[in-house]
């Protein structure tokens, strides 16, 4: 593993972007903050804690999922990936570096949500630790999906459309910003194909907002492993 490259890519593509392209940060935060506002208004404030907890997950998942556009653009248009194929960098180094850059890129939004969470007194130590664990798994799962999808995109013209569709469907549709009990079980299981659904169920459980649902824990762990393994094998590096 080329750790120095991973750090360098994560730092350059995550941290540098925060300071040199702040509009991207606002763009990544706009959807979760808008949904937080809408859910609060429509529920007369009763579901604000759900929307706050969901905001953490929605933010990190939407950044990771929409990054499929970035990854495809970097491969097809900038030829950035090609530059590193013919070098000592492995596909795993590249994927981990980009994934960490998305985590760094999400930090301003996470800090903002942490401040809001503190204002609304939603945190306990156990809940925070659980949330961190859930977010780590979530970023691995969603980034893996992102790499699988970006590898299958053959034309730049499809890049942003597909990334946008994925980001909305996989983060807004699941019970990220509302209680998971609001939807029928079959719909919940169907939506569990996106790691955001089990992540939201587990987070609502950890914050004492909804009853536990242990099946979603198994689904979350298993599908994260499956998506990560698929990404490792399906991500195009040396092409056939």
């Amino acid at each position, binding site marked *: 593993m*080329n750790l*120095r*490259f991973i750090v*360098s*890519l994560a730092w*350059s*593509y995550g941290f*540098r*972007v925060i300071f*040199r*392209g702040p509009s991207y940060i606002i763009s990544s935060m706009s959807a979760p903050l808008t949904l937080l506002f809408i859910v609060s208004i429509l529920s007369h404030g009763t579901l604000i804690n759900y929307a706050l907890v969901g905001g953490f997950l929605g933010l990190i998942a939407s950044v990771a999922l929409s990054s499929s556009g970035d990854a495809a653009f*970097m491969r097809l*248009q*900038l*030829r*950035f990936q*090609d*530059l*590193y*194929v*013919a*070098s*000592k*960098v492995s596909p795993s*180094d590249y994927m981990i570096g980009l994934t960490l850059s998305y985590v760094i890129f999400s930090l301003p939004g996470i800090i903002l949500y942490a401040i809001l969470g503190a204002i609304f007194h939603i945190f306990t130590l156990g809940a925070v630790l659980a949330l961190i664990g859930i977010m780590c798994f979530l970023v691995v799962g969603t980034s893996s999906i992102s790499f699988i999808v970006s590898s299958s995109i053959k034309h730049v013209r499809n890049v942003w459309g597909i990334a946008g569709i994925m980001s909305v469907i996989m983060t807004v549709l699941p019970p990220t910003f509302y209680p998971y009990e609001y939807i029928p079980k079959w719909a919940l299981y169907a939506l569990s194909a996106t790691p955001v659904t089990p992540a939201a169920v587990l987070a609502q459980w950890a914050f004492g907002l909804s009853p536990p649902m242990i099946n979603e824990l198994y689904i979350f762990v298993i599908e994260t492993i499956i998506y990560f393994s698929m990404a490792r094998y399906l991500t195009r590096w*040396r*092409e*056939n």
Partner: protein
Amino acid sequence: MIHCENLTKKYSDGFTALNSVSFETTGRINTLIGRNGAGKTTLTRILSTQLMPTSGTASINGMDITKDVDQIRRSIVSIPQEASPLGILTAQEQVGMFLIGRGHSFRSAKEESRIALESLGLGDFRNLPADKLSGGMKRKIFVAMAIASRAETVFLDEPTTGLDPISRIEVWSAIREIESEIFLTTHYMEEAQDLSEHVFLLEHGNIAASGTVKDLLKPFSGKVRVESHTEIPDAIKIGAMWISYVTADETSEYLGKGCTIKPISLDDVFISRGVEVES
């Protein structure tokens, strides 16, 4: 040294991009010329371990491109066609990150990237985000990567495509700074003529001709090119133009008839084969 034997690439849609290509490089700067779609990028990507061949073998300095992939990747740099730097990062950050990817320490990457960029006249611009640099400067960032990496073999796939004439000359000068063996692809004949020690002409996935520029121009020795928009007997017709090759003594026949007489260049290696060139 690059050695290819019957290298073939067929894509899943049935298109044959390379059809049993065999050659061996001899000079320091070897250039592959050919029209768009001739197979230049496919060949470069196969040789630089980015794409698997369908059949055939190839080696770089004795290392097999399918068996010794890790060794080859440590010893080469491949700058893809139309590669573009990340606009948000500075020139120095891009070159530095590339060197770190090749195993340099953070300190060495910073120092080596600074030296390489300064050697290409980008010293004053190295801390500017790439999206503020001109097209020529952006291409030089990649040449700086090749220089700083000190790789044994450097692949440059159409490094000057889309650049204005001044930027092209600047990039050519930069390419000369690279001390490694260079495998360059281009469809600009002037570029091939100016830089190469050995030229390979790729046509429809095959090496149609090869040799030094002098070798390739030998059949035209003592001749000039006559171009006309009206028909010339026994001439090659390309588009709406007739082109013929005549000796200097024969040019008098064409004077005053609206013909243009030009000296021979590598373009004529293409034209004589009935293939249009881009300029």
